[in-house]
């Protein structure tokens, strides 16, 4: 009996050690520090209202980062997420007519179809035509922008009332009281993120999930193992599109309008956040769940810089500096732990 429990304890402590030696641990550490600093700077940080506001502010980046992470893990890179998001908001607000609640459903269907079409076009370029992903998605980003500008040359459009439920159910007339109550405690933004998490939780356990890692890690080996690599990359794009779709729902719910240029700054932020979250740009490595940590770190950085109350130009500058510091930090941590691991390899 004693021996068994002793073993269990040993296994536990080594599991803890392994976790601490992982770069993921350093990311959580950075996040905790950011959180602490923000909590000190923002007086009402722990009030529900402030939490809801923060969650709302962070959600679009979190969703896009998770989608981007899937694509990067599959060996791709999507420079078109920002304009794809813009396009979806434009599609939603063009199909919807304020007077007719049913158009909301049509808009959902239309936007989802467009999201899948975006994935198919990117997927054909990346997977089947084997054009470098950066080039494909750089080109398609202008296609999405072009269409978005055609649909909505200036920000605007109209939405059905119930669409606000994706942002704040409390403000929708005729919404059942318990939904309103729930929405006041659990913001819909959080539910969207949880949907994203659940989606990946399922996919991760299917062939698609396994193959996304395999293809991103070594495309040729995966192909030689009988995996249809192009189709896997297309599926990765489709998963990404679902995340973009969720982000579009939130954005339109929040702003009641579409904007052909709103997504632009989010593209590179999502990529940077994915990298901060430990997704290797070379593909095959990283966790989609941890993409969230990356997005949170980046969001808190912006918030802290905002609170620091410095001139706008400096804010932008330090945003960049801190991203590099965060990446270098976790990279250095990896190197350090790897060295100690190598040292103990043969002993």
């Amino acid at each position, binding site marked *: 009996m004693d021996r068994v429990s002793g073993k269990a304890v040993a296994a536990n402590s080594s599991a803890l050690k392994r976790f601490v030696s992982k770069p993921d641990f350093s990311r959580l550490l950075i996040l905790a520090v950011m959180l602490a600093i923000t909590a000190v700077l923002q007086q009402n940080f722990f009030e529900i209202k402030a939490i809801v506001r923060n969650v709302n502010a962070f959600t679009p980046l979190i969703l896009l980062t998770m989608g981007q992470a899937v694509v990067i893990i599959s060996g791709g890179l999507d420079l078109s997420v920002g304009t794809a998001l813009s396009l979806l908001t434009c599609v939603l607000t063009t199909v919807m007519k304020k007077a007719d609640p049913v158009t909301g459903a049509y808009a959902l269907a239309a936007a989802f179809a467009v999201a899948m079409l975006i994935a198919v076009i990117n997927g054909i370029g990346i997977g089947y035509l084997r054009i470098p992903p950066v080039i494909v998605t750089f080109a398609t980003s202008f296609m999405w922008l072009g269409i978005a500008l055609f649909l909505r040359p200036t920000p605007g459009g109209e939405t059905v009332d119930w669409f606000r439920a994706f942002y704040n159910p409390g403000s929708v007339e005729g919404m059942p009281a318990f939904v309103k109550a729930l929405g006041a405690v659990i913001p819909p933004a959080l539910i969207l993120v949880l949907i994203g998490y659940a989606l990946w939780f*399922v996919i991760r*356990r299917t062939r698609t999930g*396994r193959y996304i*890692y395999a293809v991103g*890690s*070594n495309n040729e080996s995966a192909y030689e*193992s009988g995996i249809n690599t192009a189709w896997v990359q297309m599926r990765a794009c489709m998963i990404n599109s679902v995340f973009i779709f969720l982000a579009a729902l939130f954005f339109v719910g929040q702003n009641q309008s579409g904007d052909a240029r709103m997504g632009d700054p989010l593209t590179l932020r999502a990529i940077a956040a994915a990298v901060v979250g430990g997704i290797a740009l070379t593909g095959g490595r990283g966790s989609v769940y941890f993409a969230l940590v990356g997005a949170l770190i980046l969001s808190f950085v912006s918030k802290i810089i905002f609170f620091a109350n410095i001139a706008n130009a400096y804010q932008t500058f330090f945003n960049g500096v801190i991203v590099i510091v965060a990446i270098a930090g976790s990279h250095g941590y990896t190197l350090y732990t790897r060295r100690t691991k190598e*040292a103990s390899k*043969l002993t």
Partner: protein
Amino acid sequence: MGTVKVLEATGIKKHFGGVVALANGNLICHSGRITGLLGANGSGKSTMSKIIAGVYSADAGEIKLSNKLVRYRNPNEARKDGIAMVFQNLSLVADLTVWQNVVLGAEEKKRLFLNDTAAKDIAREIIDQLLPDLDIQKVVHELNPGEMQIVEIAKAISAKPKLLILDEPTAALGQAQVRSLFRYMKTLAERGVAIVFTSHRLWEVMEICDYVTIFRNGENAGSIDFSRDGKDPEKIVDYITGEMLKAKVKKKRSAATSEVVLSVTDLNYGGVLKDVAIELKKGEILGIGGLAGQGQHELMLALAGNYAGIDCHAEINGKRIRLNRPANAIRNSILLVPGDRQLEGLFLKHSLFTNIIFPKLGLRRQPLFTPRRKYRSECEQVVDVLSIVAHSLDMPVSELSGGNQQKVVVGKWLSFDTNVLLLADPAKGVDVGAKRDLYEYIVNQVQEKKMSVILYASDNEELIEYCDRLMIMYEGQIVAILEGDEINDDTIVAASLRVR
């Protein structure tokens, strides 16, 4: 019951661009028989295997599987028909775990999700037979090359193939691993699996195969049925090279002097290398042997200055040096010929010319513009001296055969005055003829210029043949030093396994 003809390939042709890889290839495999496929690099045996496994499609010829004409467009179709191949360039995915790799492409499902329990069971069952110590939860990039090769083999076997093609599976394995692989191959053959086995090590083929087919220049050079014709290594070598090789070169040719060139003491690196001490004499070939993965590779890299955190006392010709950077080692003329030439020794996509002159660009005092003409003529000399077969200096080295690539790795150091040449498994994946060329060249250099060599080889034969002294490593330590006549197969194996 007898054996059944599983596969018959006749008149297979294949060319890549203008190069004919296979002019007329024929191969017959019977169930329960281990067929050796032999030939020099570029003789077409790898191409033949890959055509059967569906990686390439043949330009002409026909393949019959169980008397049914087949034509595969991709490896998946071949696998569905029960043909599995272990690739020479590994087909593993580095970021997945051992068990995920073993079942990759053939995952079982339990309703919606993957059935990971079943997958782990399959992997564990096979790995236990081949390498019981291997943890199947490990991620593949943490494994050493030998372990990766085992995983690769396990992956092929997990598909329960009718025909198993092993393309140089033993190149990365240590002797003990080769033994357990051979045991498992025999078991599979008894179960009726047809096996095709290629290797450059003749003794392996002699030991495990029932039948050999030999390729030369893309055509069949001959076949030998061991049970009928007996095992005659001379005859096999004859078929491979097309000429009778001269009798084995005599071993007595030591050029070692008493002058110490390199002395290293108290070399420690992490836990991988422990208290290693080396004393290398001028004109000596010092061997490093032992089981695979006991720190030999790391020792070579350490001596070449690849580990910044190294702790040692090193002197070259009595002068204290630091081995914390490759540039330091190179400035003191300690030059490394790495084993994995494709990964460590060459810029594959660049030309022969670029590869050969590259070391000069960084280390000599350079004029602002590279003296191209001068370097080209120097480069031509190198190609000439090493008899590298290439149609132009500007062809990418990736298009050279393995043996010629290895010569380029040696050739790039040629214009330097070498104090110490570190050879890390230089003949890995190189055919018999090229291997002999390479070693003869090095032995000449040693004798003429009194160059000193540290040689690590995974094949004991090479160590026995060429070394003046041999150090055996075990878990990062040097556990035995054999000298002169002491060096033979028995003593090496005994020392490697620490029998004494």
